[in-house]
């Protein structure tokens, strides 16, 4: 598994590199001192896992994640002391390591990661093609205020256009994603996601009911309680799709 270390301190990167020597399945492919370098390195190296410092000069680790095109990479955060960040991770059971890093905690985090990834440790297949289609198990990174989520696409019921952003509905939350709805549509798997109208994309596996609506349209009820109109133009395609 290819690893990229992202931390503004050279010594912190060295320390992590030394700690990772104990894990033969992981190979440190590169290092980055800030978000800009990280993006370059990610494009060049296509790492499978990031060790990401939350506090960095310029863009923070969260800013970096938000700027990446989905799917979100596998990430283990590192932080010295940051109550907000720690709280945000705990909410989502994301993995984070406190610096100085405890080798036992590092081993546990890597163990959990291997368990989470489907298949062998050499996972995530080849790094996904950046323009390719997203699978239902792929994750996107979203953030609202202090909270952040790695949410699986399969858990998203509804995507709504809000200008250049997209509001995603899942669980009890509906944070914004820093991508336009059109950009998201290109990447979403049409087997699961359907463009209901100009502003909304629904996840077909979350539909709980369908009603006829005005002028040949349809009203779709989602399991989260949302009601979405399907325009007349899209209704025919929707019927075709559902009857398949």
């Amino acid at each position, binding site marked *: 598994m290819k690893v990229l270390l992202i931390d503004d*301190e050279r*010594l912190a990167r*060295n*320390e992590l590199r030394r700690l990772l020597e104990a894990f033969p399945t992981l190979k440190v492919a590169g290092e980055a*001192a800030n978000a800009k370098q990280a993006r370059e390195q990610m494009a060049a190296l296509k790492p499978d896992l990031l060790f990401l410092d939350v506090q960095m*000069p310029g863009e923070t680790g969260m800013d970096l994640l938000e700027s990446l095109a989905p799917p979100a990479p596998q990430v283990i955060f590192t932080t*010295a002391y940051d109550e907000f960040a720690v709280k945000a991770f705990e909410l989502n059971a994301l993995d984070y390591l406190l610096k100085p890093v405890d080798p036992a905690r590092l081993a546990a985090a890597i163990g959990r990661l291997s368990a989470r990834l489907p298949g062998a440790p050499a996972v995530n297949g080849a790094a996904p093609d950046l323009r390719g289609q997203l699978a239902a198990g792929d994750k996107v990174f979203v953030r609202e205020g202090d909270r952040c989520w790695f949410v699986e696409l399969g858990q998203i019921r509804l995507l709504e256009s809000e200008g250049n952003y997209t509001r995603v509905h899942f669980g009890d939350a509906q944070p914004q994603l820093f991508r336009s709805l059109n950009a998201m549509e290109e990447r979403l798997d049409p087997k699961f996601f359907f463009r209901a109208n100009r502003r909304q994309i629904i996840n077909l596996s979350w539909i709980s009911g369908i009603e006829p609506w005005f002028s040949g349209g349809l009203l779709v009820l989602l399991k989260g309680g949302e009601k979405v109109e399907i325009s007349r133009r899209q209704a025919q395609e929707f019927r075709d799709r559902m009857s398949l």
Partner: protein
Amino acid sequence: MEVTANATVSVDDARRRQRAKERLYVLCQTLGWSLFTVMELASTLAMPNFDNDRSRSDQLSALIMMVTMGLLMTHFFRLLMARWSWKQMNWRFLAPRILLAAVVGSLLWNGLGCAYTRGLLREAWSPKYSFPLLFLISWFYGFTLMAAWLCLYFFYHLFERLNRSEIERFQLMTSVKEAELRALKSQVNPHFIFNSLNSLRALIGEDPARARQAVTQLANLLRYSLQSGQLETVPFEDELRVVNDYLALEQVRHEERLRLRLDVAPDTLQLPVPPMLLQTLVENAIKYGISPRPEGGEIAIVARREGSVLRLQVTNPGEMAPNGGSSSTGVGLQNAAERLRLIFGAGASLRLRSDAPARVVAEAVIPLSAGA
């Protein structure tokens, strides 16, 4: 950013108190003179034959004139006393002034009163009493009233002043305690400590000698920050030594991103400074000047003795927070500014300003005479 939050609050407070006092004054004047009018009326009616040669309407007119004059004169007194700041005087200076004011005030009051009754109402002189005797009695009566008015006025102010100084003393005590508590809490920045420990861990393998040195520096810094909460001031030399340790640790972390320039005049080293003041300024400079920029920058520390003040300047690259820094920038510096004010008084100051594009200077001015 000039630290003015507290000052604004107290100005608002003072304004509110001033309005309340104004209302109380109007109320007291109205009630007092109404009571006086009622008593005068009652005594006139009770003694109908005292000067029965005057008609009732003339009596009433004279009374109204007297009350109006009294009201205006006491009001005028108040304005003059405010201008001559009698309220700030102590009793030894105030007593003769009150007597003099009552003598002159009553003369004026009676003189104008006589002029009014004799001149305008054209009252005939009652031969029963001689004019000087009547005037003397009337003058004495007026003098008593005026003196009583002034005494009441100053008793109230004396009482209020005592009350307020007591409240202020308590407020100061509370804010000292709060500042102490905050100082204790804020002295050790956990983010810095854990990052330093992390760097140290890496340094142990890379450069053991430098690692040993860094452990000592971190120990010095922690010890100093824990102990300094109990001291009001320390020699600048001590503070500077710890700041150097701190900067050495930051340089372990930031390496070439953090560049330093120290310019400390030798005659400043023995001067008293509040502990952790320079430390706070430098920490702030790194937090807002170095940490956020990938390319890093230079921190400059300048210390000068200028006449009766010690001037400390810490310069870092960066822009001022828009709109005076009501954000998190304020907290650390605000605490430092408050501590500075509590220890050294109004002569001390702590300001944040931009002296050149993309450069911010934090400047502390510490008076040398007071405090130490």
